[in-house]
């Protein structure tokens, strides 16, 4: 069976615009938050000669989602 649906070949322009704008905002905001968290960690717990033992224990590497957003965002 071959049904002609008439309107079918039209691209869902609204969907595409919403998808692209939402993805841009999400990636930009996610990267901004990731950058801020990394800067905060670096400022408070940077590893150096004067760090206490507890500060060294508290040191955390970047989380996967932080690296993911920073990788995806060309502005960060």
């Amino acid at each position, binding site marked *: 069976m071959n049904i002609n*649906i*008439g309107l079918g070949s039209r691209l*869902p322009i*609204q969907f595409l615009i919403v998808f692209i704008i*939402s993805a841009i905002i*999400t990636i930009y*905001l996610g990267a901004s*938050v990731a950058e801020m968290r990394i800067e905060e960690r670096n400022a408070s717990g940077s590893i150096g000669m004067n760090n206490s033992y507890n500060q060294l224990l508290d040191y955390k590497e970047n989380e996967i989602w932080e690296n993911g957003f920073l990788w995806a965002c060309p502005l960060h």
Partner: protein
Amino acid sequence: MNLINKINNSIGFSWHYAWLIVAIITIVQMIASSIRMSFGVLIDPLEVKYNWEQGHISMAYAISCLVTALTSPLAGYLGDIYGARKCMYAGATLFFLGAILTAYVSEIWHLYFSFGLILGLAQSILLVPLVPAAMIWFKRNLGLAMGIILSSWGIGPALSVLIVSLLINEIGWVGTFWSTGTLCTVLIFILAKIFQNRPEDKGLSPYGSTDEDKIEFSFQPSKEKVNEYSNYIKNTSSYWNMSAIHFLGCVGHAVILVYIIPICLIKDITLAESAFIFSVVSGLSSITRFFTPIFCEKFGIRSVMFFSYILQSLPVFILLFSSNLIFIYVFAIIFAIGYGGEAGGFAILNRRYYGFAPMGIPHGFQMLGAGIGMALGGWIGGAIFDLYDNYNFALLISILASLGGAVCILLLNRPNKLLIPEWVKN
């Protein structure tokens, strides 16, 4: 007077098995969302018992929302292929499994698995196929049926928070999940026994149908037909755009619903007053959620949806610029009317665009948009607060999302004819 007559006609009622189907679906939807929607009262006991961080515990809720959203199209497809009744049995079994496993969590990943994955999956299987199943039962008065079902989305969580918190205090964590899991599952099994997928299974015609209507829907489509038809549906722009509109609407209200209390606190409104403002939004939206589908049928779907999105959008300017308590209440009342009406038109639009075709796939895809929108809106407010120490930009996104949804509604196809009319003939 004419307006009142129109409303009275639209809620005209006569007894039919379809109303029992609506009652069953309403109860199952309230049950399915009960444990997840009462997540707020589960955080504290978990924090006390296992010393887990709130952020880590909340991740289970986020996983659950995401799983429900991502599996919604699949759940809709399963509903089309196997029928809503079998989905109710499968969903109830998963619900029981998820509840019992949650009773015995001892590591955080146990919670992610039982609450996030299993209960998230149970929720989508119990929620998504049931709305299309209700639609099959109605040729007319679909708006009233949808209004009853949609208003349960507000009543269910309100009841479940009270019951779950009471149970945790009285019989403890394990007892709460055993009792709610067992009782709810048994109840869903009993209701599924009474439930019928299609009017024909009961030897009936859909509510409000005439003899000429019967040609459209007197068969249960085979798997091949459902697959074939879903391909045609996916080729219509409305299939994609309705999901985008639901997404925008949910981003618009999720920002407000999640952050209304912190925003009020910043404006020096007391916690009790802020909570009351939230209750005004929740309570009033339940009423408009009931009436919106009825109004959609009577006064035009796109018009009612457009005004709902506008009412969800513009009052947020009050929240953005004013700290006056009276103005905040004005915001809460107008916003609640819009928020309650946001989702009410989709089922009616689906009917007008696709007739009595298998509706699980488009409905599932719309629920995917809605779920992602709720998750994104909830996340955006927190992210923006972390960056700028205020919610202004988040409120602006809420306004723009709702306005964007309103514009997209205006650009939808006119719902005055079926988009795939030849499906009916074939």
